[in-house]
């Protein structure tokens, strides 16, 4: 895809996110919007996946370790054709397969249930290890939040992944800088994230998580890295694309009302026309 095509796809995914969260009357739009460009690149450019055969053995795997950003995953899967877009309106509704946090049992395209922070990355490490044990070529991508890396389990998994030289594994940190209680620097600073992961023997790449050239280059860099896992630290804006949500911790876990949804969709419509 050209960058323009990726941008317009990401814009559609962002519309899906705000529409779904509005319909659910709860959920996490801020962090879903911040990772939408990364999700777009993974599912429309990077990963070997097939919506018609979501369980195919040789597929690349994706784990949304920051599972509360399920709306981003669901909107991406729907955009890719894993299930109809209309399903997004059932997010968090009783009986829907679109649970508040990803559920692999019932959702086509979801490789791992996640949501309890810190746990998803370990499962991605297990998938990467299985690939190595079986000499498979698939790659594994995990997306973690920058607040999420306050969880100790992330570092247990990082230590193991590097010790086992899992170069088929990519950890992407969505560094939008905000968590529920405020700025990650003020709550319990995880900085410097890149230096920490370097010390854990990761190949570390810092990028602007909204710049497709940089995302592309980082993903290529990861593929060319042998003997160690890669971490991509993606600087992003929480709530990206929706004027009144951008950079606001308050939009971490709050649904837009009818008026706010209209503004959000108008913002995204304009962005799509630009």
């Amino acid at each position, binding site marked *: 895809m050209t960058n323009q095509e990726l941008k317009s796809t990401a814009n559609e995914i962002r519309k899906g996110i705000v529409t779904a969260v509005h319909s659910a009357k709860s959920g996490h739009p801020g962090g879903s919007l911040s990772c939408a460009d990364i999700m777009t690149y993974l599912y429309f450019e990077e990963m070997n996946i097939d919506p018609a055969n979501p369980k195919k053995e040789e597929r690349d795997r994706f784990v949304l370790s920051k599972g509360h950003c399920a709306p981003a995953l669901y909107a991406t899967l729907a955009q890719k054709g894993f299930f109809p877009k209309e399903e997004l309106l059932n997010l968090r509704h009783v009986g829907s397969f679109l649970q508040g946090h990803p559920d692999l049992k019932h959702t086509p395209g979801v490789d*791992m249930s996640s949501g309890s922070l810190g746990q998803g990355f370990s499962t991605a490490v297990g998938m990467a290890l*299985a690939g190595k044990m079986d000499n498979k070529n698939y790659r594994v991508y995990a997306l973690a939040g920058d607040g999420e890396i306050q969880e100790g389990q992330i570092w247990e998994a990082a230590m193991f992944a590097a010790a086992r030289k899992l170069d088929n594994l990519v950890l992407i940190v969505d560094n939008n800088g905000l968590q529920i209680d405020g700025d990650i620097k003020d709550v319990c600073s995880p900085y410097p994230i890149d230096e920490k992961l370097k010390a854990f023997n990761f190949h570390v790449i810092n990028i602007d998580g909204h710049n497709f050239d940089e995302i592309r280059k980082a993903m290529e860099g990861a593929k060319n890295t042998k003997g160690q896992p890669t971490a991509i630290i993606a600087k992003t804006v929480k709530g990206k694309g929706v004027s009144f949500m951008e950079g606001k911790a308050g939009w971490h876990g709050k649904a837009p009302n009818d008026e706010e949804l209209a503004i959000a969709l108008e913002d995204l419509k304009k962005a799509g026309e630009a």
Partner: protein
Amino acid sequence: MADVKKIATRESYGNALVELGKAHDNVVVLDADLAGATKTSIFMKEFPERHIDCGIAEGNMMGIAAGLSTCGKVPFASSFAMFAAGRAFEQVRNSIGYPHLNVKIGASHAGISVGEDGATHQCNEDIALMRTIPGMVVINPADDVEARAAVKAAYEHVGPVYMRFGRLAIPVFNDEATYKFELGKGITLREGKDVTIIATGLCVGESLQAAEILAKEGIDAEVINIHTIKPLDEKLVVESAKKTGKVVTVEEHSVIGGLGSAVCDVLSEQVPTRTMKIGVNDTFGESGPAVELIKKYGLDSESIAKKVAAFVK
């Protein structure tokens, strides 16, 4: 039973893993720096490429096991019960239980029979924790023959299984030639009419001996071995309770939430029966030789017989 062969069920676990490893390429074994103690070292010797030491990080180990299982492996994640069920409870619940993954958890050093290491390492809560997870199978074998059969049955079962093993060498009373392990089925080891003793794990052997002591006092005790605590063999429990009218449960686990609680859940709903729970009372353990601790905490055959006799009268 002095002349009977004694084997710790953790040893059975290690040996059964080797047999499984020979039969199935997809068996992988994980440990968290306790391979010598959990006895997965026996498997490691045979299949080093399929033994994954995760270091001292049990939560991460459970996640890795979950990820491996989604790629077709059948992981046996191994640690002490305290860390497998206790420390990693939430990882077991959310990364294994909720997605209902085909992960087997081998937990050694359960109960006070850990001995000298003391209370921090004596897990009397694991059965209670594990049986609250929807879809989790919980197995607590009573001897070497049963433990090895249980490991194989766990492999055959598709879904998460928690297996509880002990550190202490205990008598082997099952006959390998005739023994058959059926997941979710209790075994009536001794028929009786005065009282039903329902036991699990190392307390099964002790309860059988207790029944002999009771017989001499004119009390005819039925002894049931419950190796699968979840799903519980409700039919067997209810039928025996109806027959004897008195039930005693015996386990090397807290009296809160373990076998005793599971049995009471069933009886209170289906056939309210006078019941006494023998186990570790609402207390922590302590350091000491395992056999002495079992006596001190009232889980040896003589203590069981004394309590049952008083209960029946």
